[in-house]
């Protein structure tokens, strides 16, 4: 499902954010990438999620070699095969929870009614069925992250990347989100969670430790 071979990423500076990372994630896995702040986790997620290209190395996602795809093809890959969950949720204000979730397939070319139908099903799955019509800005942090997770899952992507999904949540909401991710994984979703929090990482079936841009274990 996901394969990285000797991936490096250098930012102008120069800063070597990733110093040669190899790892693979199989279908149906729930993996935590854990490491301290500044260790290169977000950089890794951006490269795995095709939001950025590596300086060197091979990245294969959902059967596609990223180096062989152009900008528009990478966008298509994200539209159809990849879901994202961010620490800041990134919900659109002034839109209902339902419409925010429906945005998950906005660029897949599905008609709005179809998207809304799928969105309401998915909101039920994440336990927000009764909050569907609420404006996104009126929900609690935990609820917002559930909406964001439902949006990421809407198109049944091959893989979901979550960057510090509990970073803005209190411990109770965090635990609920972790439980939800485990449940979704049991139902078949492939999920990579990035976190600096070992407690959260330990709740996942598999951990990959990263430090200073290098895999320390679990790759």
């Amino acid at each position, binding site marked *: 499902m996901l394969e990285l071979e000797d991936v490096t990423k250098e930012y102008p500076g120069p800063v070597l954010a990733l110093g040669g990372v190899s790892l693979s994630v199989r279908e149906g896995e729930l993996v935590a990438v854990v490491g301290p702040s500044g260790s290169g986790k977000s950089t890794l997620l951006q490269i795995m999620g095709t939001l950025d290209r590596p300086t060197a190395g091979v990245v294969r996602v959902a059967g*596609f070699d990223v180096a062989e795809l152009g900008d528009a093809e990478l966008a298509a890959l994200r539209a159809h*095969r990849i879901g994202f969950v961010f620490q800041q949720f990134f919900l659109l204000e002034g839109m209902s929870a339902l419409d925010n979730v429906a945005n998950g397939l906005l660029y897949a070319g599905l008609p709005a009614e179809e998207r809304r139908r799928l969105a309401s099903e998915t909101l039920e799955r994440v336990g927000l069925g009764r909050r569907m019509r609420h404006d996104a800005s009126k929900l609690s942090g935990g609820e917002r992250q559930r909406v964001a997770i439902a949006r990421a899952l809407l198109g049944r992507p091959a893989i979901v990347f979550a960057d510090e999904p509990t970073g803005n949540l209190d411990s109770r909401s965090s635990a609920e989100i972790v439980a939800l991710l485990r449940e979704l994984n049991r139902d078949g979703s492939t999920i990579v969670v990035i976190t600096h929090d070992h407690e959260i990482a330990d709740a996942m079936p598999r951990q990959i430790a990263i430090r200073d841009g290098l895999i320390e274990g679990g790759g």
Partner: protein
Amino acid sequence: MRAMSLPRSRLLPRDVLSVSSMGLRTRRLRAALSAVGIAIGIASMVAVLALSESSKADLIAALDKLGTNLLTVTPGQSFLGEDAKLPKPAPRMLRRLAAVEDVAATASVSSATVRRSGYIPKEDTNGIGVVAADPALVRTLGGTLADGAFLNSATIHEPVVVLGADAAARLGIVSVASRPLVLIDGRWFAVAGILSPLALAPELDSAALIGFPLAKKMFAVDGSASAVYVRASPDAMNAVRPLLGPQANPEHPEEVQVSRPSDALAARVAAKSAFTALFLGLGAVALLVGGVGIANVMVIAVLERRSEIGLRRALGATRGHVRVQFVTESLLLAGAGGLAGVLLGVVVSAAFAASRGWPAVVPTSVVVAGIGSALGIGAVAGLYPAMRAARLSPTEALRTV
């Protein structure tokens, strides 16, 4: 490994609209304020064009009412460049033509002056000329009287005068109710009537009209006309016009000048366009300022909504989708301003036309051009901000702080 093919990212046209209107729906006040400039520009242009059409329609209606079948026959110049004269029987001869419906002659009495009293110096003519006229003159010209009555077969023999609109105003006479008198070359004349302005013979507005018989008796008028007004049957206009010269002066038809006064009115219709161009220019400046305002708002929107752009890229939007979103947003903004401007322009011009008694005319082409130019401005204003939004890489856009 790359076995399966991938469908492209797609944003349905309906979704383009809802995505692009989101920024406007969530920031209504800002959207409204930034569309005001465009609205004012379009409103002024629509109002100016519509009013110019209205005033033209009014002039054309006036022309229709006055008729374009009036011809004026005046003496021209002789072969030697001297002022020619119309032969005395010219009016009678012209009346004989089958296609001629009405004929009225006038002759100016160049020596005479008109005053309200003897205390006013003789030299102070006020620009009023004494003109001998046929009783048929008002009918022939399609003129009306503001007050009193015109000369008739009885009063043409008596010291009775009818004043043109300007002449009456200059003499300070507004009505004939008090039986006003004026002094013409030492003799008191009763003012029998005051004419309304004569659109087809403005030269008579400053005249004091008296009967031919009295003019011949009092002044050394030889009876040769200085102008003969001819009302022809409308269908025969083109046929009759070349006949008038030879008919008026069979021996020297080239010394006769024939003109159609309605042509001068028609020329005024064309002259109106000069003003229109000036006001259109001002409207265009307002439109330009409005466009800059929209561009400004769009640049700010792109800066503020960086993380939204990043999210959309993560959801699978291509650079093109981002570009289309912001260009469409700008188009919607300008289009709404344009629509409001057209409505405002129509209302303003209709109200103004009504106050002038003009017909309210709003040509469809003006409405289309108004909305079209608003959209054009919107496209130009939105292009640069949209390009900037599209150029952002997903990671740049998603980066917080």
